[in-house]
C-alpha cells in the first residue's frame, strides 16, 4: 500500500504543472521541497534509479516525455515499486482520457487532471481505485453532469 505524501508534476524546464499535497505543510516548506527536488531530479541521468532519499523520506519519480512525476513517500512503510505503478496508472488513465496525453493537455486542463488524480488517489495519498475503467467511467459521468448543468444554463 502506498501512502503518498505529495505528488508533483514538473516539466523539463523545472516548472510545476500540478501539485497535490496529502500532508499539511506550510507554504514555506512546500516551496522548499519544490526548490530542492526539482534540480536534484532534473540532474539525474537516465540510467539512474528512480528513487532518492531526501530529508527524512524517499522520493520516487518517473519521467514521461517532458514531464517528471514526483512522489514523496515515507521511508520505511512504502513500497517504491508500487508507487511507480501508481504513477504509471495515473499516466495511463490520463492518456486514455485525453487521448495521447501531452504536457499541454495537463497545462490547459489541469482541473481535469486533478479530477482524475482525486479518483485514483484518496486524500491521504492512498490508492483509492486501481481500475482504469472505473476511474474513467466516474470522470466521464461527472463531465456529463457538468455538461447538463451548462445546457441548463444556456437554455435558461
Amino acid at each position, binding site marked *: 500500500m502506498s501512502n503518498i505524501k505529495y505528488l508533483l508534476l514538473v516539466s523539463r524546464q523545472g516548472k510545476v504543472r500540478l501539485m497535490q499535497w496529502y500532508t499539511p505543510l506550510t507554504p514555506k516548506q512546500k516551496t522548499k521541497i519544490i526548490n530542492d527536488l526539482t534540480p536534484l531530479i532534473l540532474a539525474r541521468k537516465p540510467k*539512474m534509479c528512480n528513487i532518492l*532519499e531526501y530529508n527524512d523520506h524517499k522520493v520516487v519519480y518517473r519521467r514521461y516525455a517532458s514531464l517528471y512525476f514526483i512522489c514523496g513517500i*515515507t521511508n520505511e512503510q512504502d513500497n*517504491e515499486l508500487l508507487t511507480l505503478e501508481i504513477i504509471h496508472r495515473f499516466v495511463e488513465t490520463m492518456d486514455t482520457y485525453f487521448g495521447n496525453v501531452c504536457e499541454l493537455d495537463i497545462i*490547459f486542463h489541469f482541473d481535469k487532471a486533478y479530477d482524475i488524480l*482525486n479518483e485514483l488517489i*484518496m486524500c491521504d495519498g492512498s490508492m483509492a481505485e486501481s481500475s482504469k475503467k472505473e476511474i474513467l467511467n*466516474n470522470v466521464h459521468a461527472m463531465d456529463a*453532469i457538468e455538461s447538463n448543468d451548462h445546457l441548463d444554463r444556456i437554455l435558461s
Partner: protein
Amino acid sequence: MTSLYAPSADDVIQRLRPFGFFFEKSLKDLIRGIRSHNDTPEQLELFLEGQLSECRQEANSSNMEMKTNAILKLTYLEMYGYDMSWCNFHILEVMSSNKLQQKRVGYLAASQSFHKDADVLMLATNLLKKDLKYGGSNDVFKVGIALSGLSTIVTPELAKDIVDDLFLMLNSSKPYIRKKTVTALYKVFLEYPEALQSNFDNFTSKLEDPDKSVVSATISVVCELSKKNPAPFIKLSPLLYEILIDINDNWIIIRLLKLFTNLSKIEPKLKGRLLPKIVELMDSTNAASVLYESVNCIISGNMLDENDYDVAFQCLEILNRFCNSQDSNLRYISCVLFYKIGKINSNFISQYDELIMKLISDIDISIRLKAIELIEGIVSEDNLKTIVSTLVKQFVGDEVAIIETNRGTSKEIPIVISDNYKIKIVNVILNICGMDNYSNVDNFDWYNAVLYDLAIVSLDLNEDDLGTKIGNQLRNLMIRVPDMRHTTIVNIIKITSLDSVEVRLPTILESCIWSLGEYATYLENGDALIKLFIKKGLHMPHSTQDAVIIAVVKLFSSWCTRNSDQIDYIKDILEQMVDFLTQLNFSKSFEVQEMSIQMSEILKLTLEALEEQSDEIPLLLSDVLPSFFNTYELTPISLGTQKQLPKGIDFDIDLPFLSQEDLDNILDDQETLAEEDMDIYDSDRFSLVSDDKNYGHEASYEDGSSDESETDHFNDTYKDFDEEKYNEERKKETLSNPFYLDEPTGDGNHYKFSDILSTDNEQREKSLNAMEIIKVNDNSHGSQKINDKKKKKKKTKKVKVLADQTIVIPGVTEVDASSKNNKSQSLPNPISSKKISLRMHTKLEDFNFDEQNKNNSDEDQALEHLRSKFEEQDINNDNPNTSNEDEVIVIKKKKKKKKSKSKEDGTSKKKKKERKSKEGSLEATPQL
C-alpha cells in the same frame, strides 16, 4: 473578452459542446498569457500581479459564473506560489453552488487552500452535511466530491460533527459511495479516534463487503491506521489471513502484506501462521513488487530470526536476483533490504561480498551510496585491502557509464562522483579499518599509506569532520600501535607538510601536532619542527594553537636533552620560543592565553637558569621539563572511563610537596638517580623509545621544586605507587591537561592566512624541512633495525595493537561500556538529516483503545477534590456498603474514568484500589 464571442471555428465547436464554454476560455487566456509573458521573471511577475487583482475583483462579483472562474484561476495561480487563503469565503460560496461543475471547482480550491482555517471550516460543516445527503441518481458524484473534499480539510471538530453522517453512508447501496466513505473515514479517524473505537465492528465489516473496490479501500485504511496504532487490529488477523489466502489481486496482496508487517511488529505469534504463507507466496509469484513486499514483510515484521538461515537465504536469493537485474530501481531497493537483513545478523550477508563489491561499482551513485553502507557487514581481514582499493580508485572519478540509446548506438556519460559520496567513502574506509581495534588491518604500513591518501583526498572535500577523523586515526595509530610509531610519525610529518593543509583541512592538524609533541622522542631534529611551528603557529586556528603550544614545549624538552652540548643553540631556540609564546599571551582564545602564559613563564625561568649556568644545561631543562611529559606512558583507555572518576576528591593544597630538606637531598642525588632510572625502568616496554623517555615516576617528585608546575602535578603527593593510585593519578593528569581531550574545543574555522604571498616560500621551506626530518628519522630507524632485528621481521606479521584499558574504580558503576561494544558488531544507522519532516503527529498514535472515555482533567480534579472531602467524612461513617443498584452503576462509570486517568499518570493499580475504598464512601453519602 470580445474574442470570446468571435465566430471562429473553435467557438462553434465550443457552442456545440456547451460544457466548459466560459470557463475554459478564461483559464486558457490566463495560461496563454503566462506563456507569452515568459521572457523575463519581472515581466511574468507583473503579468501575474495584474491577473491576480483581476481575479480578486471577479471573486467579489455576485455572478456565480464569474466567481467560479476566478476561483479556478486562483487555484491555478496557487501553483505559482500565490496564496489564495484570502478568498476562502468565496470558495465556500462556490462549493455550495448547486451546479456540479462549480461544486467541483469549489472543492478543488478548498482542498488546496483550507488548511485548518477554523472560521471557514465552521461554516463548511453544514454545507458538508448537506452535500453528503444522498438524494437521487445524480447525487452519487456530488457525494463523492464532498467526501474527497472533506478528507482533505477535516479537523477534529469537523470530524466529530460529521462522523455520524459518514457511518450512515457506509451502508449506502452504491459501492462508489461506500468506497469513498471508507477512505474519507481514514482522515476522520486520525483526527477523532473515538469514532473508530465506538464503531469498530461497523467499520471493519467492510472487509467482507461484496464489492472488491470497497474491500480494497478498507484494507488500505486499516493498513494505514495500523501504521499509527496496530494494537486494535490484531483481532482482525484471522479474517485478513483468509483474504490473503483467497485473493489473487496483487494490489491488494501488497497492501495486506504491509498490514501484516505492522501487525506482526507487535504480535509475534502471527509469525507462525504467516511466515509459511509468505514463503509460499514468494515461490509462486513472479511480480517483482510482490516479491519485494514479501521480503520486506518478513524483515520489517520481525519475522526473521537471528538464526533462521533458511528463510534469510531465500530472501537473499531474491534480492541477489534483483541486484543483478538491469532495473536500477530493483537494485536500489534490494540494497536497502540487504542492509536491513545485515542488521539482523551480519553473518547472513557476509557471503555476498562479491555482489556487494559489484554494487559499489554500480553506475548509479545512489545505489553505491546504499551499497557502501553494507560494506561493514562483509569486511574481513582478507578482503579489506580489495575493498579499500576499490573505493580509493573511485576518487579518481574517471568512470563512464555506457548508455544505449533507442537507435542502437551507445554513448558514454561520465559518472559524476559527488563530494557527498566521497565524504562517505572516506568515512567508511576509516570505519572498516578502525573496526574492533584494527582487527582487520594486518599491515600498518599499508594503512598509513591509505590514511595519507585519504588526507590528500579530503583536502578538496571541504568537510572539517574528515580532518578530525583522519587526525584521530593517526593519533590512535601512534598510541595503539607502538611497533609502528616510526612509520606513523613519518606519515604524520608528511601530512602536516602537505600543501596548504592549514587552509584546506585545518582540523587534521590538531591531532597530528599533538602526536608529534607527545612522541617527540622519536624525532632527532625537533628544532626544525619547533622553528616550523613557531613560524606557522600564529596563523593557526585557536584549537590548533593549543596543541602547538604544548607540542613545541614537548619537542623542545626532548630535543635539548638529546643535544645537551649545544648550549648556545638551545638558548637561541629557547629565546625564539619565549618570543612566540609571549605573542600568544594576548590571544583571543582564553585557552590559548592561559596555556601560552603558563608555558612562557616556565620557559623564561629556564632561560634564566640557562644564562646563569652556561657550561651545561640546567636541571630545570634536563629533568624538570621532561618530567612534565614523560612521567607516564600513555595508554588508550575505554570510553567513559574518565567520567567514572569519583567527584570531589580533596587535596591539601597548602601542604608542600617536598620539604626543603627533601629537596636538597634530591638535588644532591640527582645525577645518580637519573642513571639508576634508566637501568631500573622496564626496557621491554620502552624498547623503541630512546633514552630520554626513561624517566621514572620518582623523577616527577622534582616537580615540587619548581613553583610553576604545581598546577600540573599536585597529584604527585601520592607517594605509594599501587595500580589504583597510578590510574587515578594518570586520570587527574588527563583532566588537568586539556590536550588529552578528544574533541577540539576551539573554533576551527575562523582562520585567516594573513600573508598569502609568502605561503609559497614557506611551503617549500616546510616541505624541505619535512624531508630533512624524514631523513633523520630514517637514520634513527636504521639504527633501530640494527639494534633489534626481531622487531623488523615482525613487521609483516600482525602487529600488536594495544586494546582499550578499562579502569575499574570501586564504588562506581561502569558506564555503558558494554553497549558500546555491542555497537561495533552491528551495522550503523544511516545518517539522516532532518529538516522537513513528513511525519505528522496524529491523535490516533497516542489513543488508547482500551479506554472507554476520554475525560477532561478539570472534571477529574473536581472529582478528586470531592473525593478527599468524602474521605474525611468516611472516618465518621460506620456503614459504607449500603447502596442500591443504580448507584453501583454510576460508580462503575466513575471508576472507569479513574482508570483512564491513572493510565495517563503512569501510576497503576495501587491508586485504583485506594479509590475503590473511597468510592465506597461515596456510595454511603449520596446526598452530598
